[in-house]
């Protein structure tokens, strides 16, 4: 321990280590709780929104105290059930998945078969660590690890997620999972390129690779895609360059969003799972809790992705008119929480967009997917970097 502290000495003041430790722990636990609840309700939202889009009602039965209260207060619960009934569904789903028979086929490669589901969800959760999900509370930054290579870290970790899929497909020792895994690998690798390249312009503008700095920049100068909205008051940037720069940012935004869809295996890019061709894709042989982990991993990846987009382009926790919290006072404390709330409201809005897209678009053909990734997005993202550089260099 001492050796480690010795080593860390130049970086961290030893006196602050206990404080650092417990705040980090608290933040991690808090964030994990929020995210896991969000995951289960994203699943619920997925089912509910899809049914509403398809003129159905969706899961509206599973009792939840909320809907029972309605009954108590003399409101017939049926009036509420279309809205509140079914809020217990995620709990029921979880219990069901937990109680299902834990089945491991005899022909699989046991070790890899077992670790694969964990890898997927693990990667998605860990990459949340660098996302600034709030301003400050009592002077503590609302980001678990404020590191200088934020986006790189996110890309590095979240691409580990593909190992989960590849291992699952390979260790299942069965053709459909294997095909799913192969598809998934090539898809993820292809789109990671455009994903990475598309955010470069942002950091060229900000000049740093730190996500917290990126957020402060947005607070100062307006959201990336809506530069007019700043902390102070709405004001229009005066220079031509600041107008022109919106173009590459918009391109970045579109490319990034679409690549994010592909990275999270969401429709229209859900080829690794493609039930119609691949039975279930890489998780065909999985059941019960292990399947649940894959399932939740996917939704966690969705949340991670949305958080990332919100952080990069939509001003993170900032909302015009709501000042930054963090001052060691009651108001500051409250504001800090409000900031966190704003962040998650934005994330949720983006999740809903994810869901709406899923129930709108059909799946791409595999060749279309590849063509899109390699011929269009990759090139566009690349050119976009030069465009940004040109604007930054030559237009004041």
């Amino acid at each position, binding site marked *: 321990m001492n050796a480690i502290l010795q080593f860390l000495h130049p970086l961290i003041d030893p006196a602050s280590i206990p404080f650092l430790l417990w705040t980090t722990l608290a933040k991690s636990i808090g964030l994990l709780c929020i995210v896991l609840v969000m995951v289960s309700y994203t699943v619920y939202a997925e089912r509910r929104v899809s049914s*509403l889009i398809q*003129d*159905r*009602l969706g899961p509206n039965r599973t009792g939840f105290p909320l809907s029972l209260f309605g009954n108590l207060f003399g409101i017939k619960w*049926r009036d509420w059930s279309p809205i509140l009934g079914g809020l217990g569904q995620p709990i029921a789903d979880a219990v069901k998945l937990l109680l299902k028979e834990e089945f491991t086929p005899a022909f699989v490669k046991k070790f890899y078969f077992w670790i694969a589901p964990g890898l997927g969800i693990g990667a998605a959760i860990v990459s949340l660590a660098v996302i600034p999900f709030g301003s400050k509370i009592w002077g503590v930054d609302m980001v678990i690890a404020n590191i200088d290579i934020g986006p790189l870290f996110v890309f590095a970790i979240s691409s580990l997620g593909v190992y989960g899929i590849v291992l699952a497909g390979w260790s299942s020792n069965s053709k459909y999972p294997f095909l799913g895994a192969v598809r998934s690998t090539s898809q993820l690798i292809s789109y990671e390129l455009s994903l990475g390249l598309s955010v470069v312009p942002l950091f060229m503008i900000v000049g740093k690779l730190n996500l917290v700095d990126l957020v402060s920049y947005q607070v100062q100068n307006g959201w990336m895609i809506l530069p007019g909205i700043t902390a102070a008051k709405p004001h229009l940037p005066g220079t031509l360059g600041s107008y022109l720069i919106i173009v590459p940012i918009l391109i970045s935004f*579109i490319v990034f969003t679409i690549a994010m869809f592909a990275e999270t295996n969401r429709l229209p890019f859900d080829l690794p799972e493609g039930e119609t061709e691949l039975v279930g894709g890489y998780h065909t042989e999985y059941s019960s809790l292990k399947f649940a982990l894959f399932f939740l991993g996917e939704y966690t990846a969705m949340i991670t992705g949305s958080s990332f987009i919100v952080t990069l382009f939509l001003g993170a926790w900032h909302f015009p008119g709501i000042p930054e919290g963090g001052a060691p006072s009651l108001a500051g404390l409250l504001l800090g929480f409000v900031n966190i709330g704003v962040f998650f409201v934005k994330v949720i809005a983006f999740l809903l967009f994810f869901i*709406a897209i899923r129930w*709108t678009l059909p799946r791409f053909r595999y060749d279309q997917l590849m063509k899109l990734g390699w011929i269009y997005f990759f090139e566009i993202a690349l050119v976009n970097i030069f465009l940004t550089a040109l604007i930054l260099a030559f237009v004041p």
Partner: protein
Amino acid sequence: MAYKVSRPNLTFAEKIYLPSVLAGLRITLGHLWRMLRGKTHVVMQYPEEKWDSHLPEYYRGAPTLVRDEHGRTRCVSCQLCEFICPPRAIRIKPGEIPAGDKFGKVEKYPAEFDIDMLRCIYCGLCQEVCPEQAIFLQKQYALTGTARTQLMHNKEKLLEMGGIKTGLVNKWNEKK
């Protein structure tokens, strides 16, 4: 031999997909919005709303055994339904009515009559084939049980569900 599939020629707008994505979103979100305003007519909410009163006469619910107005189990265990039943849900053990009995003329009755409602597919063939008008698919449709055995309807259960049916052919009448 490789086939050359001719792909449609897309316009630029179609090629970049985005307009169609927006058009699609307009449709789906339109539905969502209509639904949220309660403008969409949704299906019946089952346990609260039932269509029992609208069940047509010919509705095919669970098969049941009926008695006639004299209280005789109409079935004579001819086992034709057992034979016709596609999923083999019916099992009958015939028995003999003693000669001195009130219904002695009928000679034969089902000593055991089981329908496995987990197998029954409600096809109604048993009713159609029955030469004695003894088995009817009536209007019971909500059959649930917490154990498989509860859905093995035995003779008593079937007769209880079936009740008495009048106005049928009475061929075992003494005069016939």
